[in-house]
């Protein structure tokens, strides 16, 4: 397999380009996605090559970006909606929950809601308020939607294309703090199915599950743990709704110990869902309760403090110690 090294931002750009080339019905719509290429340059150069009719610079209203994408879907188009930042998706929440998630059902299957909502999510870039949120649980809790999160350039390249091809609406979470990190991208074949969890590192003592920007922190923690003689099996969930419980269960039955790390607060989150479900599925193998290392239950703090809000290597190792004590 031949691979190319590129940043996640570039990989997303290339993935979008491929989808635009392969399917004339694919559109991109959002604020500043045209000449500017988006504030993160994910759509850089696309308007120049595919025109203003397909790469649509929109007026400033998220509910309208998603609401008109629904109408475009009814007319047979597949729109990739860019939300400029995670904290600006909420004006579109009503359209997403009441329409995007429910129209396939309401139309008795006549409407295909094949659209993708791209969400640069999580913190770590030292931004001002509303630019570092983790709203994935809101969407995972909403029946009718699917949610995925990429953590590597290769996944970004393939998952965005798989999402665009998918016939259900997908909330596509991009860890903005990783946009500029490079990785190898295999341009020939996808690494896995869109919703498959992937074991990033094999281990035997504790299963640690995460997604998006948290993966790198977890892998760092795994190195440290290894040096302390604790072997972590690290799983990248990738699919947040639905979750790939078979991969997770297989690991947990081996390790018997579970830690989930996420930036979102604990209450009614992806992590608490994983813990409760896996505790059920692997009850007899569990030698310790599953723990969630998460953001604290406060509004995202001023970012000079964010590194003490997001899961750190230390906090993950602390949770590892606690589950190892059982």
């Amino acid at each position, binding site marked *: 397999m031949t691979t190319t090294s590129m940043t996640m931002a570039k990989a997303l750009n290339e993935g979008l380009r491929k989808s635009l080339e392969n399917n004339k019905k694919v559109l991109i719509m959002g604020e500043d996605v045209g000449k500017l290429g988006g504030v993160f340059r994910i759509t850089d150069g696309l308007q120049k090559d595919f025109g203003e009719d397909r790469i649509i610079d929109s007026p400033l209203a998220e509910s309208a970006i998603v609401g008109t994408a629904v*109408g475009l879907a009814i007319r047979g188009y597949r729109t990739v909606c860019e939300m400029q930042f995670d904290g600006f998706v909420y004006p579109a929440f009503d*359209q997403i929950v009441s329409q995007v998630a429910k129209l396939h059902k309401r139309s*008795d299957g006549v409407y295909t809601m094949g659209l993708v909502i791209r969400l640069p999510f999580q913190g770590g870039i030292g931004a001002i308020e509303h630019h570092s949120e983790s709203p994935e649980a809101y969407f995972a809790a909403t029946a009718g939607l699917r949610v995925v999160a990429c953590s590597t350039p290769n996944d970004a390249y393939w998952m965005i294309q798989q999402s665009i091809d998918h*016939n259900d609406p997908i909330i596509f979470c991009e860890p903005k703090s990783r946009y500029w990190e490079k990785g190898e991208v295999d341009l020939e074949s996808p690494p896995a199915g869109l919703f498959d969890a992937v074991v990033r590192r094999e281990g035997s003592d504790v299963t640690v599950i995460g997604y998006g920007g948290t993966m790198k922190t977890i892998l760092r923690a795994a190195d440290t743990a290894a040096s302390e003689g604790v072997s972590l099996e690290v799983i990248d969930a990738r699919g947040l709704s639905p979750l790939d419980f078979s991969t997770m269960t297989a690991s947990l039955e081996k390790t018997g110990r579970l830690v989930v790390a996420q930036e979102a607060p604990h209450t009614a989150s992806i992590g608490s869902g994983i813990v409760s479900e896996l505790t059920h599925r692997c009850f007899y193998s569990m030698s310790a309760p599953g723990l969630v290392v998460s953001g604290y239950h406060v509004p995202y703090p001023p970012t000079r403090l964010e590194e003490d809000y997001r899961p750190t290597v230390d906090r993950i190792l602390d949770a590892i110690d606690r589950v190892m004590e059982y």
Partner: protein
Amino acid sequence: MITEELIQLVTPEGERVSHPQYESTLNGEEIFGLYRDMAIVRRLDNEATSLQRQGQLALWAQIQGQEAAQIGAGRAMQPNDFSFPTYREHGIAWCRGVPPEDMLRMFRATSNGGWDAQKYRHSVPTVVLGNQVLHAVGYGMGIQRDGAEDAVITFFGDGASSQGDVLEAFVWASSYNVPIVFFLQNNQWGISTPMSIQSKIPLYHRAGGFGFPGVRVDGNDVLAVYEVTQRALSLARVGGGPTLIEAHTYRLGAHTTSDDPTRYRIDAEVEVWKHKDPIERVKALLAREYSVKNSQFDEVEAEADEKALKLREDVLAMDRPDPITMFDNAYAEFHPLIEEGRHEMIELGVSGGQR
């Protein structure tokens, strides 16, 4: 200085009036057709109301009083046009060919939609006020990208006009010059909320501030509504962009069968509007100008009764679906939680298990 233009071609007494910009293009036969539509739709509406009273429907949203607005607009559409309704557009659905029983499935609570939206080119009902207006704009953006000469029309009320989605839709339609008609049925009430709380001035004025034309038409004058909508749709088809039509009409009935208007509205107001009844008006016109005989009106009544009877039979025949159908079309592609759910339901034995 706020104008209160009101385009009217036929008075409540059924007399023609001339208007500088609009004149009726319809012949007697066509007008009689509109009368027939309105009479049948009202009859079906009443049948649905009584079905609800008899416990056969969970709810019903009447259109009584708004027949001219809906039939005039619905008949102005071309086959290839597409419409985005609320929960009250039974007259539009009728014009689009949606079978009456399908209109009642949502109210029978056996479906959240009811008909094949692509087949009839009439979208499923939208209950969340204003949402469908953005869908219509997006659909129109699709028409533009297809290079087609179709138009899209969307319906909403005076209450919904205050929703951000509707106002954002105005921004978008203007910015992209979308081939759309915003058809606002101002029936003076949003449940118990009078129009005056939504706006101090007629709502058609909103359009001007967004850069496209707004017109106000007598919503109880089917000839006027037809011409105004027809022109707006044609304008849209040739790249003329959006138009907002405010149809000045009235909700003669309750908001829905669960509403009690006596708590908030005086009978006198209703009485005034009864004199503007859209059906009586066109009936008078047909009798006077086209010497339509009572027997012809009676034939329509009879036809309407037949259809009402059939509707009743069809509704009574609508059984509770197998619970397991709740999993159908939740997703378009395989989803593990859907399979788990189906499995659990079959285990519980509440479903026949068939799909």
